[in-house]
């Protein structure tokens, strides 16, 4: 059986194709808009460009929202593929089945973050009469569009290279020996996790854009390892099950979507003010409270599993 005959992959690739076609049409028009845009002009061309700008904004907003939703579908599809990829028990096996999986996933997350920034700039741009951030948002989109093309190439390479006859490694590899960065222990990882979380809350309160940006990126990195190698084992209630994906499954009440979703959203809102400042030269402090809220949710869920296990058994794993 070919991986391209899987229902999920057919649907995923068809939607992806439609979105790329829409984005390509937009990109062609964006080039025209960027070349000839002069808001102060009252010429036929400028009025035509302004009409075109509205159309492009609508198309892009639609495609970008679809792309963000499609990311969740992509993760669900990989989970479903575990049934036909020999040896795979969850996403971990499917993602790690060839060299493109992890790169593709990372690129997808970066693109989603980029699109999130684009949506915010677009909203700001449309709230003024003179479209002050038009060029910035279209340059950003052009960059993201190039990333989307790269992503599409990687997707094809990834799907083509998923082995369906040779068994792949899955969570079994992480069962064996947990590899923590820089030789950290679990205790140190948990201390870093909670310390960075506390620091972010303080920085979000102080609205320090650059330091908050740095701390959020560090927290994303630390949280990935802390959730996979510490909190995850309490979710699975198995000391050797260190997998970031299994918690997305039904057996664990899809809790992974809440943990990773709130983490990504929290980090996104934490890094956005600095990036928006760079792009628009203005301060945006409203997002810090969303950042704090989302990260508090992540930490509460993670801590809940540890506390629950300890209260029920009187032990730590």
């Amino acid at each position, binding site marked *: 059986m070919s991986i391209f005959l899987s229902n999920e992959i057919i649907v995923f690739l068809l939607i992806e194709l439609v979105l790329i076609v829409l984005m390509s049409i937009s990109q062609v028009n964006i080039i025209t808009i960027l070349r000839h845009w002069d*808001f102060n002009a*009252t*010429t*036929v061309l*400028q*009025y035509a460009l*302004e*009409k075109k700008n*509205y159309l492009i904004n609508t198309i892009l907003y639609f495609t970008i929202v679809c792309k963000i939703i499609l990311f969740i579908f992509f993760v669900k599809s990989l989970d479903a593929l575990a049934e036909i990829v020999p040896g795979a028990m969850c996403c971990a096996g499917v993602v790690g089945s060839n060299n493109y999986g992890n790169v593709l996933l990372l690129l997808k997350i970066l693109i989603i973050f980029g699109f999130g920034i684009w949506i915010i700039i677009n909203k700001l741009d*449309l709230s003024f*009469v003179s479209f002050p951030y038009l060029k910035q948002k279209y340059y950003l989109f052009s960059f993201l569009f190039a990333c989307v093309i790269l992503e599409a190439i990687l997707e094809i390479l990834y799907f083509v290279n998923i082995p369906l006859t040779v068994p792949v490694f899955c969570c079994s590899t992480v069962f064996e020996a947990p590899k923590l960065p820089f030789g950290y222990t679990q205790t140190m990882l948990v201390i870093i996790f909670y310390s960075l979380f506390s620091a972010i809350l303080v920085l979000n309160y102080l609205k320090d854009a650059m330091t908050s940006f740095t701390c959020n990126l560090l927290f994303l990195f630390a949280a990935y390892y802390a959730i996979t190698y510490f909190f995850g084992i309490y979710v699975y209630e198995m000391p050797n099950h260190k997998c970031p994906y299994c918690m997305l499954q039904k057996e664990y009440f899809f809790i992974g979507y809440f943990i990773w979703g709130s983490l990504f959203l929290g980090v996104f809102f934490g890094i956005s003010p600095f990036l928006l400042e760079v792009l628009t030269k203005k301060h945006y402090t409203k997002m810090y409270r969303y950042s704090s809220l989302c990260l508090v949710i992540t930490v509460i869920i993670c801590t809940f599993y540890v506390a629950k296990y300890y209260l029920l058994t009187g032990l730590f794993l």
Partner: protein
Amino acid sequence: MKKIVIKNLNKIYNPNKANEFCALKNINLEIEDGEILILKGVSGSGKSTLLSLIGAISKPTNGDIVVNEHSIAKLPDIMSSAYRHKEIGFIFQAFNLLEGLSVTQNVIAPLSLTKMSEEEVREKVKKALLIANIEHKKDQKVAHLSGGEKQRCAIARAIVMEPNIILADEPTANLDKENSLLFIDILKTFKSLNKTVIIATHDILFDNLDFVDRYINIQDGAIV
């Protein structure tokens, strides 16, 4: 003070298509604050198009319209709506009222989008009904009114937000002579309230009115 400044305004419908139609050609016009202006011309000459552009209902093909020193030709849709709501009172040939509602309910409609207190709303509605001379029918359903009464209800609705600019498109086309003269009387009140009024009409009753500041003839989309 210049209330409205129109510069090199053109409006082409269906540009670059077989049915392309140039509705307005290179219009340049300045309208003073408190001026009453009558746009005259036969049907299809471009009067209504000009009104719709001043009212930000449609956008020009090129050129600019400046109202209160702000260009309105390029306003995004959401801001155009706010501009119309705050600055413009429209009076239409077909009245465009909600037939199932009463006169008061129709007049209140624009105020329902504001955060005014009930007391303020009541006061404004009363004032508008008095100016439009329709207070005696305030509780009557619009469907039961005569043409002239409907037009006066439409006038009350147009002025209830106290706009500075009133645009009227063929306001007497559906009225008999008596009601048309009543409408002209109300125009005099607008003059005394220092409203800027632009009326597109080909009704001869509007000829040679002493309180009208200017008559402009439009022919084939151009001022003649």
